[in-house]
């Protein structure tokens, strides 16, 4: 595994000058992950903050070959590029010993929702690529609309906190479990605040042949109504409250990579984000209790599966 010093010495493949917001969680994730590839990388990004914020013509923040096609087809697009690589190598148009890695990036909207079918298809077909979802829990690029990754109780512009409906009334989709059901060789959840864990996971994801998946929580001050300088703190709290467990499934065996010494109450995480502020008004207690109960249940489930073959 790379040390921080070694990681820092690697070439920056995602440059400054992009237009992502102050405090946005995405750039740290991309920079860290691209440094962990170990070979030249070809990338694609689903429509969303990352795409819009990095490529306003004629500028680009990408120092890797990169393509944007549409919202729901990042996994299908990278399938085509990876297949071209295989074909052109076979035909001798690319040197047989040239190693190239492939990665698709998508937000939760482009991955959990509109891109789920293309993702599922590409995983099933077994292309040799990494899919990375930066999950900030809503359609942030278009102005904070709810996605299936939006947490229960969160206010968004399409699940506003009203007097009848108090924010999102459904639990979030557990995409990592859905991906696990594809029986791919490696998948993991991570967070950029834990750079060591995330870079280790990215290294593995790139090194392992076949489809691999990383689901990474990504702070969004705009949509979370949080302070830009608090993004890392909130990400860490997401893990310490077990809202966002850090774990991996390698060859079918689940491993919880981080177990907080003291599991913090979800209240600590909720109170730093304006999207949950209505929960702190009258009648919100019950909703917070439900959020805590759901987190406890999932965390217990994960602890129970720790070290076990789960597929």
């Amino acid at each position, binding site marked *: 595994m790379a040390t921080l010093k070694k990681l820092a010495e690697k070439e920056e493949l995602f440059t400054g000058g992009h237009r992502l917001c102050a405090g946005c969680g995405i750039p740290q994730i991309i920079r860290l992950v691209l440094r962990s590839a170990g070979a030249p990388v070809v990338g694609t990004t689903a429509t969303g903050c990352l795409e819009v914020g990095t490529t306003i013509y004629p500028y680009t923040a990408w120092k890797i070959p990169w393509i944007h096609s549409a919202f729901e087809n990042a996994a*299908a697009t990278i*399938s085509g590029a990876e297949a071209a690589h295989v074909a*052109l190598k076979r035909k001798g148009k690319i040197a047989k010993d040239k190693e190239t890695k492939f990665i698709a990036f998508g937000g939760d909207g482009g991955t959990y929702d509109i891109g789920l079918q293309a993702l599922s298809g590409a995983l099933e077909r077994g292309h040799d690529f990494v899919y990375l979802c930066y999950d900030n829990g809503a359609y942030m690029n278009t102005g904070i609309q709810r996605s299936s990754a939006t947490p229960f109780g969160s206010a968004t512009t399409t699940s506003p906190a009203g007097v009848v409906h108090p924010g999102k009334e459904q639990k979030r989709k557990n995409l990592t479990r859905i991906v696990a059901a594809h029986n791919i060789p490696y998948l993991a959840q991570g967070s950029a605040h834990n750079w060591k864990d995330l870079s280790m996971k990215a290294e593995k994801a790139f090194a392992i042949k076949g489809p691999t998946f990383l689901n990474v929580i990504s702070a969004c001050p705009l949509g979370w109504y949080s302070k830009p300088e608090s993004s890392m703190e909130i990400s860490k709290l997401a893990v310490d409250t077990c809202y966002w467990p850090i774990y991996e499934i390698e060859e079918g065996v689940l491993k919880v990579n981080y177990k907080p010494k003291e599991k913090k109450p979800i209240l600590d995480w909720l109170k730093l984000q304006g999207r949950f502020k209505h929960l702190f008004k009258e009648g919100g207690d019950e909703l917070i209790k439900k959020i805590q109960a759901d987190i406890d249940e999932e965390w217990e489930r994960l602890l129970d599966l720790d070290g076990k073959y789960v597929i």
Partner: protein
Amino acid sequence: MASSAKKLKDQVGLTGNSAVALAMKQINPDVCPAYPITPSTAVIETFSDYFANGEVDTEFITVESEHSAMSACVGASAAGARVMTATSSQGLALMWEVLYIASGMRFPIVMATVNRALSSPINIHCDHSDSMGARDSGWIQIYSETVQEAYDNMFQAIRIAEDKRVLTPAMVCMDGFITSHAIENLTLATDAEVKGFVGDYTPEHSLLDTDNPVTMGAMTMPDSYMNFKFEQSNAIAGAKEVVVEIGKEYGKLTGREYGLLDCYNLEDADVAIVVLSSAAGTTKAAVDELRKEGKKVGVLRPRLYRPFPHQEIAEALKGIGAVCVLDRADSMSGFGGPLFTDIRSALYGIENAPLVMGRIFGLGGRDFNVANAKEVFEETFKALEAGKIEKTTGYITI
């Protein structure tokens, strides 16, 4: 006699789908992402056989939808591969979004489009609603009358799409079931001839060139978007000359030369029908019968529909008394079918323009036979005699 006997001996009987799949085998593309849909399924099934038996070294990707098929085409083409696929109807409709992305990024993807009606009501038979809906997507569209032509058009489409002056995706259309499933005699090109004709594809940029990274599909603002579209529009319009050039070159190789239009007995015609694809064959049979009766009738079959050869069409129809444009697709609530609208517009303001009417025919596989074609000629003659058109647009065989 001897030469015609030899000709027959060299011919094989194939369905349109088999012929197109064989053309794909001879082209041996780098990547073929595909999803099955009636009536184009047999193209992909046959190609699967070639793949399974090692007769092509294509990377064959059996994707989970047509949207992903075209998306994978885009990814593969961006990575510098020669890419082909096939689809029909709902499949083409599902690709819609990505068709524009492929053409906007100027990827020379070639797709066999086996024409079929669109739902609802669901119908698996031929009409042109699918490809007509894609007529403004920035793809070159070539319509094939016969199996031979569908086969020949595949090779030419590769050359046209990949031409540096063009760099635009192309679809080769043929009529579902009528052409895709009917066995016709055709003459094949040898593998060596095909290899020599299509040559190697060398992209200007490739995602796989990791030493020279490029960003593709960047976000554009009002200061640049329109310029990209202007350049794209010019490039596809310029494809017309390339189509002619490559049609001639193909003619030298195989003896079968292709142009923009197929004109049948038009020179001295009083009345003409304009129609695409297989229905032109039926109409030509009607022309033969009517000519025997001394009636001066003819057919114009545009082979190239996008880019639309409006000057050549105007030139071909100039001086004819009355023309009926037959559309195998309706432009719902518009003024006639898409071909009618385009033809009428092409004729506006020219000298000696014919009277023009339009009729919708053959939707969802509704029969269009020689008698129907004769009726259309008869109605068009009536307009000519009256010096005016009673009913400009409408349906026939309803």
